């Protein structure tokens, strides 16, 4: 059996979110398993399943090279704008 990662969208307008993983012999069964294991308390309206081996993950030992450089570039955050009061949801 293969390992699959499960992503669930809880409602329209939101994006799919990783909720966990499971074992299954193939994609179709993985989808049904995901339905049975992760949506039994009405957690979602859409499911994605992906073979875990198809995910390329960043290497924790490369954290410095990958993520440190962004840390001192505060000008990349939109914190220097004055937002009018009427603008919501930013």
């Amino acid at each position, binding site marked *: *059996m293969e390992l699959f990662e499960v992503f669930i969208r809880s409602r329209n307008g939101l994006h799919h979110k990783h909720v966990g993983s*499971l*074992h*299954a*012999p*193939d994609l*179709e*069964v993985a989808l*049904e*398993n995901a*339905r*049975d*294991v992760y949506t*039994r308390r009405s957690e979602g309206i859409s499911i994605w399943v992906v073979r875990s081996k198809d995910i390329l993950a960043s290497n924790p030992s490369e954290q410095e090279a990958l993520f440190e450089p962004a840390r001192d570039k505060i000008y990349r955050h939109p914190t220097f704008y004055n937002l009018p009061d009427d603008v919501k949801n930013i």
Partner: protein
Amino acid sequence: MIANQQVFQFVLHLADDSLILGHRLSEWCGHGPTIEQDIALTNLALDLVGQSRLYYQYAAEIEGKGRTEDDLAYLRDVIEFRNHLITELPRGDFAFTVLRQYLWCSFRTEYYQHLLTSSEIKLGELAAKCLKELQYHQRFSITWINRLGLGTKVSHKKMQTALDELWPYTFEFFQPTAAEEKLINASLIPDCRDIRKTWDQSCQSVLREASLVVPQEHWDFQGGKEGMHTEHLGYILAEMQFLQRTYPGLVW
């Protein structure tokens, strides 16, 4: 004029079918081949037990003698149960379980489709509610029939053995009781004989696709709907009813 008694018996039959099959499925809880299938089977069990509650509540209402859903589920004996024999057979292996689920569920789904338009509005409403759940049960069981039927030599053999054992019990789906005949004549419920052809065709095609062969020569079993059960039902009731029989009126 249709006596309430006949509708009552019919609703009990629907309730008993769901309760007994639900109980059989619940026996997998903690024993599934994998954690995923364990949860899946328990979900199906919960669906069916939930459905049986709706029917028992309705039956109690029709009877109007003050009995509750619990009285009907826990305080009737074997001879008063009206479920199809196929639902009470021991749970067997996983192949047997998914195949039984499919055979019963494909029949029940087809049957409920016809019950939707019953002049007894409540029967249609309950059927509509159950259909949504049963459609998934069907999908789930077909998935596994295919995987196991076309899987390894061993899995195929287990499926075929299960089919040989289960097929003779499907005969009963299409044999109306005398009481059902009256309801059929009054157009309150569908005639199960009319469903046979459609059911047979879709069933044969699902089984064929999984390279399973319907046995040609076999016995035909029936009697469950009239209270004549296999030896297995008594054991289920003994387990299920123990608490209410030993401590009458006990509540959570």
